[in-house]
């Protein structure tokens, strides 16, 4: 394995992406990602001196419009898609880790 990316780096990137992997998953993912990054590195063969980057191929420039509020009247349907809701609000667990409260 060429070690373009280490197991520790994979864990770091997973943290940034809000993902977590088991040891077995890390064992499988790390060499796969390493191979794919090896494919990415073939781009260094292309001379891009003085070449502009392309981020969009749209023929539209920024389109401006008035910022007008539009009430879809769908709050009930929207809340039905929420994993947990009560009295017109989405419920989430406490932001502070309650499991540590008793320590």
């Amino acid at each position, binding site marked *: 394995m060429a070690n373009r990316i280490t197991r520790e780096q994979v864990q770091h990137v997973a943290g940034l992406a*809000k993902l977590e992997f088991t040891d077995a998953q890390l064992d499988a993912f790390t060499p*796969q990602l390493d*191979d794919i990054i090896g494919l990415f590195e073939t781009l260094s063969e292309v001379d891009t001196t003085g*070449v502009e980057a392309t*981020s969009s*191929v749209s023929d*539209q420039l920024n389109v401006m419009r008035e910022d007008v509020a539009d009430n879809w009247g769908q709050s009930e349907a929207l809340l039905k898609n929420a*994993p947990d809701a009560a009295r017109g609000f989405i419920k989430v667990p406490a932001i502070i880790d309650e499991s540590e409260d008793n320590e």
Partner: protein
Amino acid sequence: MNYFNQDLASLHADLVAKKVSAKELTQATLDNIKDTDTKIDAFLNLNEDAALAQAAKIDEAGISDDQPLAGIPVALKDNIVTKGLTTTAASKMLGDFKPVYDATVTEKLAAAQMITVGKTNLDEFAMGGSTENSAFKPTKNAWDQTKVPGGSSGGSAAAVASGQVPVALGSDTGGSIRQPASFNGIVGIKPTYGRVSRWGLIAFGSSLDQIGPLTHGVKDNATVLSAIAGHDEHDLTSSTQAVPDFAAGLNDATSVKGLRIGLPKEYLAEGVSDDVKTAILAAADTYRKLGATVDEVSLPHNKYGVAAYYIIASSEASSNLQRFDGIRYGYRAKDVQNLEDVYVKSRSEGFGDEVKRRIMLGTFSLSAGFYDAYFLKAAKVRTVIMNDFKTILKDHDFIMGPVAPTPAFGLGDEIKDPITMYMNDVLTIPVNLAGLPGLSLPAGFSKGLPVGMQLIGRPFDESMLYRAGYAFEQNTDFHTQLPTLGGQN
């Protein structure tokens, strides 16, 4: 009921003449899907009651001559949102998600009075080339149920190819309409970037994604594209260019006379199977016989397309998929202690492996210390690839080549090897990077499996591709050959 013997114009004529009612057509379509889907697994969800109710309304009002799509059934890839109808993107993350609005294309189909009969399977969040990445089930190829249907619009392609529906919509980020169309022996187009609004398409790679139709024939495809294309204030990348009636000019089977076609030598290079090469060279001869010139041309940076794409598409995906956080909608993990847990556990349990791989690749490519070497480099190589196309299309009316290096491969054959799977897209990806239109249509067979040809045009010149596709179709019989499944002659 199957759609092997009738094109849209003929179905429309029957509906106008009341030889069949919209309700009968819809019922027969639903019955046939239930009957054949045990073998194909193209559908994730049927829209039975609403479809029949809509059909009854259409019958009541009557169908007139100027409503070419009214009463005709259509299926939508399940990453296109449909109000009140479960839309999953084939992900556990959206297992029971009911959109509160319709995608613009969904609205446009409804305005044309097409009847949405159901939602088709895909690779999770459209990430894959075989539909094996669906969280729910793999779809099978209409021609051989041991083969993949391609992907990510594999459900839409297999549904049309097996005669379940006459039309389906797919989405194409790196080949996801064209490659499954090729694997199933049907017609599919990735329109020019900006031609069709993506409002309501669950975002994957926002600088690449386009929606397009899959059909049996070229003319049908043109008819449906005209119905779904056009500017939309909800998608600021959608173009204000006028939308022609793409089907109107399609009646001259010799209309390629005098055209100049480019055939890139890289499209017949290593990795492309002999049968595919043979089919494309024969297609070039067909065009020559019809009076067109076919020149060998070169896309020297084509081979870098896959690497550039997997950096750009994955980076955009990692950003787009941040919204799936277990809070407002979608999957939320159980047994979570705090907010961080909600995010991490919901995403880790809700996403499948390929989606996680792409999020990881994208996050890596955008992360501090790697951005210049990966994302920025890929965005520059994208410019170089675009310029290769521009050079050829300056003095050629369109480019022809294969869609995929091989015909459909076996279920399970490539799913464990991401790079092999990614390389299947080597001939379709550059077209997305350049934002050009690409049409896939049947051009041959290899051991009983369809082989597709790809026509690539100038921006917003889908008319040229349809014209050339129609001429090819009228002078060959590949599109008349049918899979042995479901109601063959």
